[in-house]
């Protein structure tokens, strides 16, 4: 009797496994949190060093147009051209991609039927999976000459960057919007059709309207991707840290300056710290995009 009782009150193998599993998960989460926190700390401290250690003006950083952190005797860290470049390519490519993404997503969910979706889904997913260097390479060989011939200039510039990013963010925005369209309940469609609406009226008066929060989230995700894209943009934008006066002259973005400059600076010096400041701006912007999507996600259901 006592032997059975002892056996029953002892911790079972399963419950010990349970505890061990919990411990392993906790360890993994802690490790990841440590990594994230140390990355945040590193970028922030290095990024702020430009202003606190090297005594550069934070106002100049956001308003001045000349980027030459290694200039003697007075270094110049005006990041405005890069900030403008980054925002231009991001906003323009999102604006360009949005209508295509909306149309594609609606076609996939509400028009093409099951078979059409089966074909289109992998195509969209494939576009997401192509490495950005390949996009950049195609951009360099196709888009840049195209822009040069059609719009003039050297071909390098914000316009080419926009075109390349357009193709890159389109699948992201589309597949996210497809998910949100699928989440619009079928009974809205039925209710609308039963009131004598045509399919097109149902789509634009009910479905799109009901899914606007989802659409905005999708577009902001696309913008976040465009904002952070480095390689493909760097290959086609021309990399001149000049405040862009038009869309077809060479410009630069935060990311392109980072990728081109990072190998040519020494850790701890101003030119290096200045690059960290750019990284900090990128980090803060992705935080903003993230918060925006959360904010919108809370407001709407789909």
């Amino acid at each position, binding site marked *: 009797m006592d032997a059975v009782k002892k056996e029953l009150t002892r911790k079972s193998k399963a419950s010990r496994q349970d505890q061990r599993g919990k411990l392993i998960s906790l360890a993994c989460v802690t490790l990841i949190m440590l990594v994230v926190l140390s990355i945040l700390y590193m970028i922030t401290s290095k990024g702020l060093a430009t202003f606190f250690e090297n005594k550069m003006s934070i106002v100049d950083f956001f308003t001045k147009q000349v980027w030459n952190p290694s200039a003697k005797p007075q270094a110049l860290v005006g990041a405005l051209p890069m900030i403008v470049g980054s925002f231009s390519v991001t906003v323009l490519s999102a604006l360009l991609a949005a209508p295509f993404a909306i149309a594609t997503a609606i076609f996939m969910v509400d028009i093409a039927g099951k078979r059409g979706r089966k074909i289109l889904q992998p195509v969209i997913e494939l576009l997401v999976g192509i490495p950005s260097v390949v996009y950049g390479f195609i951009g360099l060989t196709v888009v840049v000459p195209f822009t040069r011939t059609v719009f003039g200039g050297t071909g390098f510039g914000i316009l080419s960057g926009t075109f390349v990013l357009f193709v890159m963010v389109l699948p992201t925005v589309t597949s996210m919007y497809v998910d949100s369209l699928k989440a619009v309940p079928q009974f809205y469609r*039925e*209710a609308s059709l039963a*009131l004598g*609406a045509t399919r097109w009226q149902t789509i634009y*008066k009910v479905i799109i309207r009901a899914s606007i929060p989802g659409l905005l989230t999708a577009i902001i995700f696309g913008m976040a991707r465009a904002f952070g894209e480095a390689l493909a943009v760097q290959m086609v934008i021309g990399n001149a840290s000049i405040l862009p006066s038009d869309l077809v002259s060479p410009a630069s973005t935060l990311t392109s300056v980072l990728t081109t400059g990072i190998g040519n600076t020494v850790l701890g010096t101003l030119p290096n710290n200045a690059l960290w400041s750019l990284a900090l701006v990128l980090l803060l912007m992705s935080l903003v995009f993230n918060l925006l999507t959360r904010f919108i996600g809370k407001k709407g259901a789909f």
Partner: protein
Amino acid sequence: MAKDIITAENVHLYYGQKEALHGISLGFPEKEITALIGPSGSGKSTFIRTLNRMSDLNPEVTVTGAIRLDGEDIYSPKTDTVELRKRVGMVFQQPNPFPFSVYDNVTYGLRLSGIKDKALLDQRVEESLKQAAVWDETKDHLKENALSFSGGQQQRICIARVLAVQPEIILLDEPTSALDPVSSAKVEDSLLAIKDQFTIAVVTHNMQQASRISDQTAFFLDGNLVEFSKTVDMFTHPEKQETSDYLNGKFG
């Protein structure tokens, strides 16, 4: 009995190969309430969805036979389903207002027809919500999202949305089965209040509801129309044994 406004003649319906309705012939008298009762899976909802061709939405469905609205077969190739559905409105089991304001919900059908006159829209909104007996609860909240109302209120807003386009016939597919008894009673009241202006067909699980509100009752079983007669007659002395058994709760 008033003249039939919409009549089904030998309607068969197939889901793929499977026959779900085995030749239904049934007429709906004008400006009266016809209840369709029967156990789950008896084909009553399936049948009602053929009357405004909502069954077309399922590509596997084929319908044979004829359904005549004012003498015209609605399954003829000439029929414009958009026009048909404006004449034959539908309220669904689950309250399904659009996630817009009450006002936008009720005016939806009118705007589809291109009506933009604000005064006319306002007037129709008030009339429809009053007819659906939900005006008092909504009149100060017309700009509020319809989803913020209770289930019963949402369902009456949906009824108002259908009434706004002034259909000739209103089909209701178990309109109260998702509602509590108090809300159901309110929906029933609004149906009784509008029955002198519209022809109403209502599918219901609830036999008491059928006996309370309907003039005629059709009893469906396994895709067949077993019995169709005046509600009073059916509930007091049903002709068929199955009807009697169902009404007495022996199955279903």
